[in-house]
């Protein structure tokens, strides 16, 4: 099986999910006697290609173009379609980033193909590749397979594969091959402008050793002080899943998850959080995870060390009291 891995960089920095996806590609290649071509796309990105050449891949393909300096969905689709048509891969893999979800479904559709996105694993079932992805916000998992002819498009979720398992090349470097693409200014219909961060927040949750996080289960903003009391008693920071910040009940800077902060505290106490994947990717690295939820099937329990199935409105005051007692 011939596998293309499209890596991602922005402003001189790798998106590290690229390496996880390369590691996944190596595992698929091992299972299917495949070969891997790693692809770098952008402008002035030869150094990135050189870095990939030290990995265990058959070759590195380098697409450099003036009009690819800044990401645009049109530019990437036009360029990568040409690459895929000329190299004829069986499988095209991507890290499942915000950028990938912005253009890859369209790229695949331009070729009359589908994409299986946000996969967390794969299996080789007697020569047929089956991709594993979550559905219903992580409450169920589905095995999905491609029907029809290659090329097939798939992306892997951040954290699904370990970048540290990426094999280096045994010796020397893989050949780096520049690929020319034909891209005209009129191909690109949207115009990227400034990249920016909102005013830097006062709290840096990534540095907090103890985090008490709330989700939809908190029900109303007037209930938040109960959770804050737990946080105060434990000496931790309060945080939340996205819906709470979307509602404006806590500021956006307290949001944990794919669109917020990624944290790895000593303790993560999840109160009324179901554990949708967008949240879990931001906190699964915590050393100890405690989940309190009234639904015993909530996916948060899959990653919890300690679980309490119950009403957070009964647990929060009891926990505050016990914590205060323990502190004496």
């Amino acid at each position, binding site marked *: 099986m011939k596998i293309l891995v499209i890596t991602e960089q922005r402003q001189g920095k790798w998106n590290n999910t690229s390496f996880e996806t390369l590691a996944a590609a190596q595992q698929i290649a091992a299972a299917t006697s495949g070969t891997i071509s790693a692809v770098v796309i952008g402008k002035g990105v030869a150094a990135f290609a050189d870095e990939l050449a030290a990995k265990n891949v058959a070759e590195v393909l380098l697409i450099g173009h003036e009009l690819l300096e800044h990401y645009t969905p*049109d530019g990437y689709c036009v360029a990568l379609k040409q690459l895929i048509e000329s190299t004829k891969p069986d499988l095209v893999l991507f890290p499942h980033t*915000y950028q990938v979800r912005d253009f890859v479904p369209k790229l695949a559709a331009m070729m009359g193909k589908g994409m299986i996105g946000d996969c967390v694993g794969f299996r080789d079932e007697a020569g047929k590749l089956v991709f594993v992805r979550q*559905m219903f916000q992580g409450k169920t*998992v589905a095995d999905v397979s*491609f029907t029809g002819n290659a090329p097939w498009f798939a992306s892997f979720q951040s954290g699904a594969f370990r970048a540290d398992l990426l094999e280096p090349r045994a010796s020397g470097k893989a050949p780096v091959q520049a690929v020319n693409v034909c891209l005209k200014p009129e191909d690109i219909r949207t115009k990227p402008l*400034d990249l920016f961060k909102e005013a830097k927040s006062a709290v840096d949750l990534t540095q907090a050793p103890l985090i008490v996080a709330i989700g939809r289960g908190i029900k109303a903003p007037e209930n938040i002080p109960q959770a804050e009391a737990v946080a105060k008693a434990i000496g931790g920071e309060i945080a939340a899943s996205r819906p709470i910040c979307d509602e*404006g009940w806590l500021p956006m800077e307290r949001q944990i998850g794919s669109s917020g902060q990624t944290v790895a505290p000593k303790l993560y106490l999840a109160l009324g959080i179901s554990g949708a994947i967008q949240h879990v990717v931001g906190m699964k690295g915590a050393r*100890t995870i405690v989940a309190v939820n009234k639904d015993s099937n909530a996916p948060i*329990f899959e990653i919890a060390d300690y679980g309490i199935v119950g009403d957070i409105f009964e647990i929060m005051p009891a*926990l505050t009291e016990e914590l205060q007692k323990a502190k004496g």
Partner: protein
Amino acid sequence: MKIIVCIKQVPAKDAPLSISGNWIKESDIGFEMNEPDSYALEEALRLKEKHGGEVLALSLGPERVKQTIKEALAKGADRGIHIVDDNFAQLDPLGSAQILVAAIAKENPDLVLTGLQSEDHGFGQTGVLLAGLLNLPHATIIMQIEVQDGKMKLKRELEAGWFQHIECPLPAVLSIQSGINKVRYATLKGIMAAKKKEIAVIPAESLGVSAEPTQKIEKIYVPSKTKKTEFLTGTPKEMAAKLVEKLRFEARVI
């Protein structure tokens, strides 16, 4: 501006899911408007209030989907389009998009909005696919829309706290990020007014879309646990005391 909002109806958030074949058992559960799509609808209504025009609520699915279209009409959408397809849950993302496109193309909208992703399949591809099939420019994960002189200035969310402004011509397709606005509730007046609004019913098979699916759900199952969870039991006070004990002396994190 003529705006089409694509709205999916999904199982209610607290619905107990039981697996049946390669989908879930739909007979005993409630359904609701896909929450990310409610932000797209709200954004469409705000754009109409500011710039004038018309908002169409488009939904694909079985008969039950009509309830969600009515909810959109009650919130202020002007017209509804229901593409009836009983086999909807088994469509792949490209197949759904092809059916939606056949209906959208007839309306010639200035703007097509979708939510970020659905809470059931969670493919998160529809908006981008619509743009590809309609050959329109697009942008996703949108946090702000300003329309001026026939084009839009958009604020797009990137990862890890980064944002980007982009300029996008009209017509276009946008996928809206949840939290872009505060979603309104339907008023009693809106609910009454909705009764007089039109819902066009289009059988999916009449659209003449006959694409082969590109992917197939082989099996759906409950994920196996990767971590062993120790469940604490007792009264709330007992569970709280046990937890504090565990955190102090077993996990040693407090």
